[in-house]
């Protein structure tokens, strides 16, 4: 009887899938365009250490993850004014070493399949803000969401 119980416990202990181990994605730094002037576009590169957005991921070595951005088309400002944003085909980057200087660029507008080398990685995001000539002055904000599915 005692032998049967022991075997059962060991079997359940080994059944925990790798993908269900602790995984996470955390926003570290916002995408900041700073001071903008009406009629003057400003681009932030994904390699900009101060102004690019950064998300830190925790996964499992050798595992894969699908990265999907939900990107805003505009930022919203005073009295409901909107400021257009553009994200291009090379505006996102994945770094398996969490280094902004060592990224693989990808298009943030489509899902990207990344592979973990260690158990941590980072995703960086740039973009372009296009204020109009008559852009209302003031502070503008928007949100970017990164969804990561770990396999």
């Amino acid at each position, binding site marked *: 009887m005692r*032998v*049967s119980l022991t*075997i*059962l416990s*060991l*079997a*359940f202990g*080994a*059944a925990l*899938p*790798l*993908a*269900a*181990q602790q*995984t*996470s*994605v*955390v*926003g570290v*730094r*916002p*995408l*900041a*365009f*700073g*001071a*903008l*002037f*009406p*009629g003057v576009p*400003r681009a932030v590169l994904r390699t900009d250490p101060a102004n690019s*957005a950064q*998300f830190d991921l925790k996964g499992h070595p050798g595992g894969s993850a699908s990265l999907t951005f939900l990107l*805003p088309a505009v*930022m919203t*400002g005073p009295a409901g004014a909107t*400021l257009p*944003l553009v994200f291009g085909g090379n505006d996102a980057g994945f770094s398996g070493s969490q280094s902004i200087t060592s990224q693989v660029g990808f298009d943030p507008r489509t899902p990207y399949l990344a592979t973990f080398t260690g158990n941590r990685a980072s995703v960086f995001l740039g*973009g372009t*803000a296009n*204020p109009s*000539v008559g*852009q*209302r*002055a*003031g*502070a*503008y*904000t*928007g*949100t*970017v*969401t*990164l*969804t*990561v*599915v*770990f*396999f």
Partner: protein
Amino acid sequence: MHTATKVAVLALALVAAGATTAQAQNNATMNVTANVFRPITVAADRNLVFGNVFPGQGAQGMALGSPAAGHFSITGEPSASVSMAFVVSPLSQGANTLPLTLNATYNTVDNAAGTSIVTFVAPTATTLSGGASGQLFVYVAGTVTPAANQVAGNYSGTIQLTVIYQ
């Protein structure tokens, strides 16, 4: 023994079934921010007018506070840093030029007793006023020195002021 074997088989089956569908999903949201400054406007409110001047009489001009002095008004983002650059054309009448010397000041209030502009060749850095409206005023005066044989007539030129955010 037989019971233990059956239990172990059941557990292993659970492991096999779970491995094909195991996934974990996480997401995080980050802000995107910007601050749009007011556009800079530069208005030439008043021309620099020397009026009638006489050959061979030395330097003739006006004080900065004179109604004949030139005046620019600048508006923009309160407390913003800006750079002012001048382009001064010769005072001329056809091929004839009239020697010109300029002096200027700038102030965050409309008063000529401000900070002297040291040179018209290189840009001058300064800051717009704070408060509800960012403003700056520039006063331009000077002297002309007609030669004794200066050709009579109307002489004119331009002073262009460009202001940009820094």
